[in-house]
Every structure is written in structure tokens, then in C-alpha cells.
């Protein structure tokens, strides 16, 4: 698929997927669910898990510091959705994954994938529904999972367990943020 075509397809699907729950998404939702201890059902298929991992790694790629996959963000996202989010967000998340499946996200090359995410980012801004959209969910959980993981936090920030004092200071060039 050419990049232009991919993007056209994504735009079409996002329009459909986000305006109202599609039948397909609903089927998918019901098939992919099982009850958890909170009485709210949520789980992902293997393909969906791979898409989540891909997107998380595109948001926080491995560089000279670890990436989202290295610190277990994909599994964290699924666990968090299950334990801390409710049905509307679950639906929104599954619908988002569904459109990714439709554009065969996993088969695209990295540039094309980035193009899809850029488009997704723009399209998300148009959504007015109260339910948190797919892109916001996956981004927020990726950042949370990464920046609070031991490796992610220590690689990104100056970790201070016990500051011992409170001091107004001047920032040095390129100084990292403190994390506590």
C-alpha cells in the first residue's frame, strides 16, 4: 500500500470508528472480553497486543535509553485498562485498535506507521465525545508506564529518593528534571 492510500484509508476509518461504535467493533469487543476481578471485562487478542506494542514503541522508542517495549509498557497498558478504566474507555480502545487492524498497521513500514499516528493525533483533536479517545489512552498509558518504570525513570531523570532539603536553584544547561 502506498503511504497516500494508507492515510486516506485511515482517515475514512477513523471517521467511522470514532463517530459511533461500529458493528464490527462491537463484535470484536464481545469476542475479546472476559470478566476480571473488578467485574469489568477486558482483554486483547494477540494481534491487538502486537499493535499496542508497536504504537507504544513508536511513542517511546529505544534510543540510547530503553524504549517502551524494554520496560514492559505493552503489558502494563493492558493491565491498566482492565483494572483502572471502565467500559466506555475499553470500547474506545478496542475501536481504535480495530481501525489499526483495518489499515493493516503491522504490515506498514516505519514511515507509514508514523504517518498513521500523525494522522491519528490530528483526527483525535476533532473528537468531542466525553470518552477518552484511543490515541489519548495509549499515549497517556505509554508515558505513565515508561516514566514510572524503574529503568525508564532512572534513565530519563535525576532520581532523588530523599532530597533532605528544599532549595531554590538555577537550572544548568541540559539539566535533567528531578524525579522523587
Amino acid at each position, binding site marked *: 500500500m502506498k503511504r497516500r492510500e494508507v492515510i486516506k484509508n485511515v482517515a475514512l476509518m477513523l471517521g467511522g470508528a470514532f463517530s459511533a461504535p461500529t458493528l464490527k467493533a462491537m463484535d470484536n469487543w464481545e469476542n475479546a472480553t472476559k470478566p476480571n*476481578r*473488578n467485574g*469489568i471485562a477486558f482483554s486483547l487478542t494477540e494481534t491487538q497486543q502486537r499493535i499496542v506494542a508497536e504504537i507504544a514503541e*513508536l*511513542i*517511546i*522508542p529505544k*534510543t540510547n*535509553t530503553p524504549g517502551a517495549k524494554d520496560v514492559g509498557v505493552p503489558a502494563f497498558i493492558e*493491565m*491498566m485498562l482492565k*483494572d*483502572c*478504566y*471502565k467500559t466506555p474507555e475499553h470500547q474506545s480502545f478496542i475501536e481504535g485498535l480495530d481501525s489499526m487492524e483495518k489499515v493493516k498497521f503491522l504490515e506498514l513500514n516505519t514511515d507509514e506507521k*508514523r504517518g498513521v*499516528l500523525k494522522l491519528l*493525533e490530528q483526527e483525535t483533536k476533532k473528537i468531542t465525545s466525553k470518552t477518552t479517545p484511543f490515541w*489519548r489512552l495509549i*499515549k*497517556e498509558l505509554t*508515558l*505513565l*508506564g515508561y*516514566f*514510572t*518504570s*524503574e529503568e525508564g*525513570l532512572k534513565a*530519563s*531523570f535525576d532520581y*532523588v*529518593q*530523599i*532530597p*533532605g*532539603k*528544599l*532549595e*531554590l*536553584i*538555577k*537550572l544548568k544547561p*541540559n*539539566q*535533567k*528534571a*528531578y*524525579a*522523587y
Partner: protein
Amino acid sequence: MNLNIKANKNNTFDAIVVGSGMSGGFAAKELTERGLKVLMIERGHEIKHIEDYDTAMKEPWDFEHRGKTTNLSAEERWANSRFWGLGSEEVVNHLTNDKENPYIEKRAFDWIRAYHTGGKSMHWGRQSYRWGKHDFEANAKEGIGIDWPIRYEDLEPWYTHVEKFVGISGQKEGLEVLPDGHFLPAMPLFAPEAHFKNKMMERFNRPVTVGRVANLTQPQDIHTSLGRASCQYRSKCQRGCPYGAYYSSLSGSIPAAMRTNRLSVLHDSIVAEIIYDEQKKRASGVRIINQNTMLTEEYFAKIIFLNAGSINTAALMLNSKSNRFQNGFGNESDQIGRNLMDHQLGSGATASIEGFEDDYVYGQRPNAMYIPRFRNWGNDKQTAYLRGFGYQGGASREGWESGINADGFGANFKQSLTKPGPWSIRIGGFGEILPNPNNRIYLDSEKKDKWGIPMIVTDAAFVENDWAMRKDIIASAVEMLETAGFKNVTPYDRPTHMGLGIHDMGTARMGRDPKTSVLNSFNQVHDCKNVFVTDGAAMTSASCVNPSITYMALTARAADFAVKALKKKDL
């Protein structure tokens, strides 16, 4: 610490204190230090200072859900999780399971509870402000509710007494609206806050100060002798402090009472009833139900201090019926449970701040900035509402969270989030709520909890005065942030109920006339002088400043009076 006493004679003490929270802890300290043998009865489980702060030293990644509220917590703590952050796994297990301890919301009330040693003193925000003279006079001047039977001067020495023991960091400002106290060194304002402070003075003649907070910036002997150390600036106080650096009953008053060897503590014991001796015309003790075994026992004392928290204290009094008190203990006035007040919370404004790019902070300040009341004060007269509000808030540099709503992803994005983000600021109002007999709690006539005690019904809501004040809290916040030159000034107004201020009070008010009040000027029940109520229930009006040091000051004053009266055989 737990006693298991069977024989009746061993169940007799000089004083009983109901509740081990902020005010109960202080009552126990003051009474034992004056020589009384005290039994403190706590309905919740025991928490041992330091040892039982199970999350205090956890690292961010040790929390499975990284501090977020799980669906399970939100379901079990359906009321507690309405408050910011209290559903988080960092603290949630130290807050009461609302599902197991339900109450009935005739009108919704956000009742935040912590049934365990120390009560809510373990979790408080530690903001500590004296009331001003005007706070004790306003009811009488404006013809609202009833007059306080005491004035600022009556409480002043007790504020000093409490502040010295508690340890409050703050800046003296010489303001009539916010009297200075006995302070430990103040924490600093951050650079944009200092700029804000100057602008407010320049433009509105409004003072701004750093929060007055019960964290030890420079511990004195009175603190270190109890094992309390200097604040380490982690700002994880709500989990419990391993250094005892912030004040709670756990770190302060209970250890002080314990070292007198005159304090006994009972846990898991719900005080269900005050026992009234019809012959002697005094309360003789209390009846408790063990929350685990369901067994009932009776304990006796010469005096009883009720410190179960304003709502539970009122409920306990209403549930204590006798021939003499058919309408509830000391409730001839029908005021018990009424005049439930709080501070309105949840509205204000936020803004982003340009500049100050090389200003940063090492350490986390467990404190905020404070803007004292300026409405209906001095020359300011509002026509839409009575009384006023103060703001708490502050500036901080954004962290990686700012990436959530910002555009971008990938390597550069990731790198950019490791730097301190731009400054932003938030200020939120704490507004005074007036006493109103229709804002109340009462006991349900049929429904009982699992211990067979009638369930508490909340029936209270904001009225016109509150809504008019709220509008101004928001408008003034916007005006002040804009005047300071900050950008993207955005008002916020979180849908909220009474209770969210966690300053519930007024349900057994002090007053001069037994026909319209429950307690006299020394917090004695008018019609049964050996029972004292010194938690928030005693409050005749609410002020707009955080109330806990006022509860403690009232408690210390009443305890001093009670012991003197006992010695003179007046009680």
C-alpha cells in the same frame, strides 16, 4: 497498646476519650499530662507509627497501578475516592472502606473518613491557620446563626500552646485577617510565586504568603524528644512519614500521652452509646461494640471527651437515649446534627507561566502558597454574599505529564520530556459556609449498620450564599492570574458537594443559651457537664481557614478546664 479488660473495676478510668484522631489525640495528651488516667477508644484498627506506614518507602514502580485509582478501590471507597488522590494505592488502604461502612446520602455529601489510630490526622494537608478576631464576632454582627460564647482572646494562649507542640512552619506577616502564630522557619516561595506576590500587593494591595504548615523545618526539643525529625522534603506525607516530620496524633500527641504511662488505648471498639446515670445526673461511661467480635462492653470514667469527628460525635450523641435525654444526649435544643458546615472547595483557576526558565527547585515542598481572605474585609463589601474565602495553590514546573496532551511522539519527544517543563500555576478557593439548621445529619429510623447501630443520613447542600461566593472565587482567581501576567488563564469548577473540604463541623455547636446550642463556652454539654465535645462538632461558625489547629486549641483549653474542675470537685 491494646488492653483487654474484663473486670468492671478495671474498666474504670479518670477520663475516656472517644476517637484517636486530631482532636482525640490532643485530648489524651493534655489530660494524661495533667495527671489523669485516660482510656482512649478508637473504632478502627491499630496503626503503629512508622512501622505500619506500609507504602511510605515504596518507589514509584513498586505500585502496580503507579498510583492510579483502580476500579476496585473506587467501588470499595466510593466516598473517599471522590477526593483527589485518596483512591490511589499509595494511601487507599488507610482510608475507610465505604462499602463496609456505608452512610445514606439523602443529599450527596463527600464524607472522607479514616477509621484507624490517628484518624484523619494521618492524611491531612497540614495547613494550619489561626482564626482571626472577626471569625468569632461575625455571627453576632451579621445576625447569622448564634454568637460564639468565646472570643479570639480566650483561645489565643491555647493556639500558642498547640503551635509549639505541633511545630508549624510559617512566615510572620502582621496581618489582622490572618494572625501570626508561633512559627518554625518558613519554606520559600518559588520564583514565579514571589513575582505573583509582588504583583498582588502592587496592584490590589493583597498580601500573599507561603503556607503555614505542620511540617518540621527546624525541630525543637519538644519535637525531637518524641523522636520527630526534620522534614526531608519528599512530599509523600499522606502515606505517613517515617521521620515523624509532619504532625499527626501518631507522631505527636499519642506518643506524648503514652510516655506519661497514664494512657490506655482500645482499638476496634466502636463507641455506640454514652451511658447516663439518672440518679447522679451525669454520664457514667460508654458502651462499646468490638468491630470484629461484635461483643459489647462498658467502660466508666469521671469525664468523657467526645472526639469522634463532627459527624460521628453527633451520631453517637443522637444514638444515646435515656429517660432524661429522649431526643439524644444533651439534645434539648434539637441542634445536634444540625448546622453542618464545611469549606467549599474545587473551584479556582490555572495558568501557564512564561519565563523563569532557569529557575528550578531541589526537593519537593510539602506546602503551598496562601492568599488570605480579602472579601468583605476592610473596605471591600460584597453585595452578593457574606464572609469570604482564601486561596491555596502554587506554581510548579511541569513534568513528563505535559506530554500527554502535547503533540508529538518518537525519539525527540521522548528526550524533550526528560527536561523540566514550563512553569504553571493553580489557585483554588476555600470558602466559608454559614451555619444552617437545614444542613444536617441524622440517624435513619430503620436502617442499621452491621453492628446494629442506626445508619447516618447526610442531608446538606450549598445554598445561594455559597454559589455566589463560588462565582467570585473563580472570577477573582482569573483576575489575579491575569494581572500577574500569566498566560492561558483557565477557570475551573469541579462539580462537588459539601464534605469535599473535609472540614465537616458544627453539629453540636457552642453557645451561651442551652435552648439554641449544645455546648457551653468550655465545650461542656449544657445539660451534662462531665461530657465535653472538642472536635469540629463544637464550631459555631466555620471561618474560611483550615480548622484543625482550632480544634486542638479548643481541646487543650477544655482539658485544662476539666482537670481544674475535677481537682476543685466541681465535676
